């Protein structure tokens, strides 16, 4: 019994060893056993399962004479803030409990053109605001490595779907670490592409200058394959780049000889769990033994990344979420006047964290405070970006832990918003600077909890960080996922 990669599954289908329909049934059975069955681990990775749609898609693929594309017959899960026409997209919110997507996100269109089979929508923190999935209005997802712990967030359900072997691929969105952090905490690979690399059309907006869609996979090669499919310019998203998409799968040479890797050691002095630090130090040494040059880099303003991020992200969120007013879509609470309808709808539809962030963002943008908070944060954002520009003058990639701590227990941080925000200390800088990042597993704690590290890259240079992560992955045994074996070869 061995978990098959997306690439191997596709090959098995093309070789007629299995049909797309069989692979689809395998995924659905695994979801039933691990996610739905109350007698099972009940991981709750899935907010909804699109079984009929997936079966119809798989059957259609099996009838095709020529393969659809590089993901022919590969099951994939999507975070429940990505629109799939005709199906409900909740974004983890009561506000959108009954919202039927009126169109497909661009990534959905691209995935289906490539032959992927969308099997369901995954659990996430409400409107992607959170680091644990505990802010989902419909219950959190559980970490397969230890079900008493969160999988991280906000794209926790997508991470769990891949880590537990329910689907070989999933998509999430990363605004301040929401792909990389759950990837690290569940032991899978997660990529946050350069801002503008992947179209955001059909992604429910949280903070528009930071949001980016990216893949989860069990191997770097699969993540490269998925990114290759979803990347590219889109006339529906004016911030997406028209620059050509490299063949990421061809960039995985396995070699890091001569690659200059920067480590911001000053940032890592405080607040990093001892076991996370030990795994990271060992991984850095391994990169050196593979022929990379390790260089110390200074990112002095990244110490300020958390307050900058939480002022900017909440300001943008307060503006983006103004659209949920009970008029055009979503929940409506009836009231005698228009203003009271807005206020009551929003009071009932939003959960505590979303309200808190709308309040914070509204305050940061309000008259008298705009200069002190929002403008100041944007200026420090410039300094954070300049630090990266300077560092990338001397190195090809920057390596640091993804999360300062391994997976935490339910309830451990949820009552103290600031403590929860501090968990994002290593991930938010990449979003603020717009640069790409990949989290790759780099070990486990004594208790068996996965540890991840992230390579950050120059803008548009996903190829280098994928190459480094792949070389690391190939260099030794790092257990990915929870050892689930869904798509067994036997």
């Amino acid at each position, binding site marked *: 019994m061995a978990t098959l990669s997306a690439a191997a599954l596709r090959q098995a289908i093309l070789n007629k060893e299995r049909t797309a329909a069989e692979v689809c049934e395998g995924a659905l059975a695994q979801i039933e056993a691990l996610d739905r069955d109350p007698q099972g681990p009940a991981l709750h990775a899935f907010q909804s399962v699109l079984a009929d749609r997936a079966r119809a898609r798989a059957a259609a693929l099996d009838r095709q004479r020529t393969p659809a594309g590089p993901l022919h017959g590969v099951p994939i899960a999507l975070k429940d803030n990505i629109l799939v026409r005709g199906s409900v997209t909740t974004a983890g919110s009561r506000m959108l409990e*009954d919202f*039927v997507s*009126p*169109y497909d996100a661009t990534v959905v269109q691209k995935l289906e053109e490539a032959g992927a089979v969308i099997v369901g929508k995954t659990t996430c923190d409400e409107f992607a605001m959170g680091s644990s999935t505990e802010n989902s209005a419909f219950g959190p997802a559980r970490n397969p490595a230890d079900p008493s712990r969160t999988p991280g967030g906000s794209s926790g359900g997508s991470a769990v779907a891949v880590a537990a072997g329910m689907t070989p691929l999933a998509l999430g969105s990363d605004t301040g670490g929401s792909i990389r952090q759950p990837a690290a905490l569940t032991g899978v690979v997660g990529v946050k592409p350069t*801002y*503008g690399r992947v179209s955001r059309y059909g992604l429910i907006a949280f903070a*528009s*200058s*930071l949001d980016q869609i990216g893949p989860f996979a069990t191997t770097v090669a699969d993540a490269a394959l998925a990114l290759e499919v979803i990347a590219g310019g889109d*006339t529906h998203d*004016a*911030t*997406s*780049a028209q620059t050509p998409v490299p063949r990421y799968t061809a960039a995985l040479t396995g070699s890091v000889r001569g690659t200059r890797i920067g480590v911001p050691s000053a940032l890592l002095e405080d607040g990093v769990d001892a076991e996370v630090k030990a795994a990271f130090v060992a991984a850095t040494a391994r990169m050196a033994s593979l022929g990379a040059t390790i260089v110390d880099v200074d990112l002095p*303003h990244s110490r*300020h990344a958390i*307050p900058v991020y*939480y*002022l900017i992200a909440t300001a943008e969120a*307060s503006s983006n979420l*103004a659209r949920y007013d009970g*008029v*055009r*879509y*979503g*929940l*409506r609470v*009836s*009231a005698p006047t*228009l*203003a009271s*309808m*807005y*206020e*009551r709808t*929003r*009071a009932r539809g939003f959960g*505590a964290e979303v*309200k*808190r962030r*709308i*309040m*914070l963002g*509204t*305050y940061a943008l*309000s008259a008298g405070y705009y200069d*002190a*908070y929002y*403008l*100041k*944060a*944007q*200026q*420090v*954002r*410039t*300094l954070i970006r300049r630090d990266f520009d300077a560092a990338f003058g001397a190195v090809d990639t920057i390596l640091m832990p993804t999360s300062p701590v391994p997976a935490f227990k339910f309830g451990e941080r949820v009552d103290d*918003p*600031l403590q929860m925000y501090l968990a994002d200390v290593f991930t938010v800088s990449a979003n603020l600077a*717009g640069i790409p990042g990949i989290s790759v597993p780099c070990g486990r704690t004594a208790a068996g909890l996965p540890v991840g590290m992230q390579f950050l890259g120059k803008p548009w240079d996903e190829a280098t960080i994928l190459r480094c992560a792949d070389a690391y992955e190939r260099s030794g045994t790092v257990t990915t996922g929870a050892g689930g074996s869904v798509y067994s070869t036997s």
Partner: protein
Amino acid sequence: MSLLTRADATRIATLARLELTEPELDLFARQLTSILEYADRLQAVDTTGVPPYAGGLGAGALRDDQPASSLAREDALGNAPGADVTAGTFVVPKVIG
């Protein structure tokens, strides 16, 4: 400077069109105070002459405005609470007396 009073919280909730309960107002006033106190460390960063960065890497390009089909009206109204699909309108409580 960032101590947030109950009155501040009430004012912000009104700006944000959120009907909050008394306990929520107290809780958010307290939590936002703690977050803003943490954020106050930014005031110590010298940003003299530093331009604000709103994000983006200059990738977004202007394109010709070409007519194309957009969401059909019935699709646009499909999720609207109480919409009048026949008339093709959203429906809200009476605004003008």
